[in-house]
């Protein structure tokens, strides 16, 4: 017991001042380095092995897509029917397709088509979704009503289903057309997310404070609202890159994705299916490549979500 004045009653306890030093009210802790929310996010990502695994894989896949020549020296198209469904051997580590083409070579070359579709579709649908969602959510009124109804219509057609219908009618298909058509049916998801995030960001006090400062409405949208609303869309974009690649391969599998002359994983899986019983390898390898690619983007999406959502970070 500390020295307490005699007039205090018996159960009046006062802690020893030395044991409970009081600090200045509300002093700024100047010992730590300043950290923005991006710094926080980066540090959270950096500390996770999953980030490095998926990051390295994604970089590798992108490198393969851009410089296939570095990874492969065998022709992907030259066919030798003597090698039809041939087993792996030196120089042809993954064996041959039914046409006698080198599976590994086609794997390397096919990366570009799959990745192009994935990246293009993600870019298009994210950009459209962000712009439309942000404008609708921010300006509201009739613009919002019209855009939301149009979004509902596109949303009511499942992406790949819509793509199937349109693809059957388009004769000359390129990675760009496939990407555009996938994006046409996929943008409402991004737009909805963006719209919701923009609405809640626009209702904050800092937006009101900026309005009271005289900052113009559009400038507030660009400088305050969008930067604060973009996080969930970044997560969606990362994940949907993977799902677009799956969608492209599904279309190719059905025979209405990229034309048969284009080397892509989806096409190779599709053409190998006939001989699945006797020669599963030509189907397995592109399937593995495809899955690893998609997996990398999904894992990256997980890491990014955890990093951008402080709540999720705390929960982990």
């Amino acid at each position, binding site marked *: 017991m500390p020295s*307490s*004045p005699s*007039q*205090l*009653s018996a*159960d*009046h*306890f*006062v*802690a020893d*001042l030395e*044991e*409970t030093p*009081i*600090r200045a*009210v*509300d002093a*700024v802790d*100047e010992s*730590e380095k*300043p*950290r*923005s*929310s991006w710094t*926080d996010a980066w540090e959270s990502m950096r500390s996770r092995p999953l980030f490095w695994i998926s990051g390295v894989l994604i970089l590798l896949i992108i490198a393969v897509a851009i410089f296939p020549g570095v990874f492969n020296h065998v022709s992907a198209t030259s066919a030798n029917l003597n090698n039809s469904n041939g087993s792996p051997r030196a120089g042809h580590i993954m064996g041959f397709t039914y046409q006698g083409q080198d599976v590994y070579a086609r794997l390397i070359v096919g990366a570009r088509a799959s990745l192009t579709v994935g990246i293009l579709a993600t870019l298009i649908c994210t950009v459209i979704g962000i712009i439309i969602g942000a404008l609708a959510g921010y300006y509201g009124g009739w613009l919002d009503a019209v855009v939301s109804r149009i979004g509902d219509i596109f949303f009511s057609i499942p992406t790949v289903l819509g793509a199937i219908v349109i693809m059957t009618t388009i004769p000359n298909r390129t990675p760009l057309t496939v990407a555009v058509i996938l994006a046409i049916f996929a943008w409402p998801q991004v737009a909805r997310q963006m719209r919701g995030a923009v609405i809640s960001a626009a209702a*904050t*006090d*800092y937006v*009101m*404070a*900026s*309005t*009271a*400062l*005289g*900052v113009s409405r559009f400038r507030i949208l660009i400088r*305050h609202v969008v*930067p*604060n609303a973009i996080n969930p869309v970044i997560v969606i974009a990362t994940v949907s890159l993977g799902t677009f690649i799956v969608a492209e391969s599904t279309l190719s599998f059905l025979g209405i994705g990229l034309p048969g002359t284009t080397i892509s994983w989806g096409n190779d899986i599709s053409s190998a299916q006939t001989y699945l019983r006797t020669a599963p390898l030509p189907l397995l390898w592109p399937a593995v490549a495809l899955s690893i690619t998609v997996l990398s983007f999904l894992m990256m999406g997980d890491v990014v979500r955890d990093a951008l959502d402080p709540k999720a970070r*705390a929960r982990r």
Partner: protein
Amino acid sequence: MTTTTETSTTTNFEAQKGKPLLEIKGLNIGFKTQNGYVEAVRGVDLSLGQGETLAIVGESGSGKSTTATSIIDLLPGTGKVTSGEIWFDGKNLVTLPKAELSDIRGREIGYVPQDPMSNLDPVLSIGWQVEETIRANRVATGRKEVRAHAIQVLKDAGLSDADKRLKQYPHQFSGGMRQRVLIGIGLSSRPKLLIADEPTSALDVTVQRRILDHLETLTRDYGTSVLFITHDLGLAAERAEKLVVMYKGRVVESGPSQEILANPQHPYTQRLVAAAPSLASRRIQSQISPSVTHGVTVSDVGSDDALRIEQAHEREAAASKAKDFIKVENLTKVYNIRQGGFKSLELKAVDDVSFEIPRGTTMALVGESGSGKSTVAKLVLQLESITSGTVAVDGQSIGALKGRELFDFRRRVQPVFQDPYGSLDPMYSVGNTIAEPLTTHNIGDRASRQARVRELLEQVSLPVSTINRYPNELSGGQRQRIAVARALALKPDVIVLDEAVSALDVLVQGQILNLLTDLQSELGLTYLFITHDLAVVRLVADNVCVMQKGKVVERATTDEVFSNPEQAYTRDLLEAIPGANFQFGA
């Protein structure tokens, strides 16, 4: 096993009358975080007797809620009791098997949580939630009995039409009614101990008062001991016989409430008592008769308060020159609320409001939620359009301002909002936030703006190094300082403070109020101070408008309102200030 415990419990109960019901000894609680292990509660001792009421008082982060939730093993996340004992009714709850503890929860220890909005399951009906409690604690069995009991519980808690409301869902209840339901649930099995964790801090003062009165009656009737957790010293003093003051995880002072408040020993308690606005305002009132205001001496009141009163008189003298710097006349704002389909409802948020604010003075707009006070703030700031009536600042009517004129007007009137966590853009550094008004209005070049930001930081007593930090690194009070700095950047004449200190801990609140008062006398600012807290008004305002349901019900100088309130509603508000009735011993 169970039978032996049961019998020993009953004998203990008889033997322990007058003895402590709850006794916490040397309690340590730690949390695992990303940055390692953090001790949230260190060596806490407290004891609560049968039928007693004890309040744990402290600011956010003091460990008061952690201590309370550890009693019923409901620590959030990674929290763990690392050492110490919690004796309840002869059992050490720390070492008790989980099943037995679950049996004590609800049945012997009731719990009333803080936020009525988030503590009822949104997808289940009120009746269901009360009934499952009754069933789980075996208070009644059989469908009809349980139902009848549930209705009784809710009626006791003050929901007179309980039988009709059983089928309704939480979202159909107001905050006050939800809290009544939660109190009903907490007391449904007549527990020996009730833990009430800030049970009314989310409610309006008059609602708070009614609910606390009711809670007091019930617990007295049931002979329930109450453990109150609160940040409000006034409330604690008014409602509890014993007080435990916590600071940074430790108990710094404990004992009889009256004695602690009258004669605080620990420096922290002393600070807390000095800063509690409700208590201070009561002191000023009790010793000043309205006619002899000037006779106040420094020893009668805290030196801060005396200084403020003096400053107020100086301001009043200066103000008489510009009586109507801000003139609000017949201000009305009507919202059309869409009701689905083509129906719409007209809501008169502000109804024929008139007042003037002399230059360099503070006008407080007081009212409870829904009174329209914040809407008035937005109208004065021209963030919402005026339906009818006028607002004039320095002779210029602002309702019709557009484009360039509106842009120029914005330099003169600036806001500081309530929520320190929402009023700063988390993506902007402090420097950019404070510089935004300067860049927007194209004032100076980069270097001179940077210099002005530093100057402003100094003005609000923040270190210059804060410039590169982000809001998420700062405390609520620090953020509010930055909001003030941003508002000051354009050298405005008027600052509209919309509940600017309401979300802050009392000591921080006092600091910000001091800062605002200093800035006012330094820069000759005119304040429109929106608040629900009359106690704060006493410390800062020269004039007061009391608002209720969109209308101004009373308008007078601060002294008049406090010493001689004319309207019953104002009196209700004054009465409801926690601690307003508390009489100091010495």
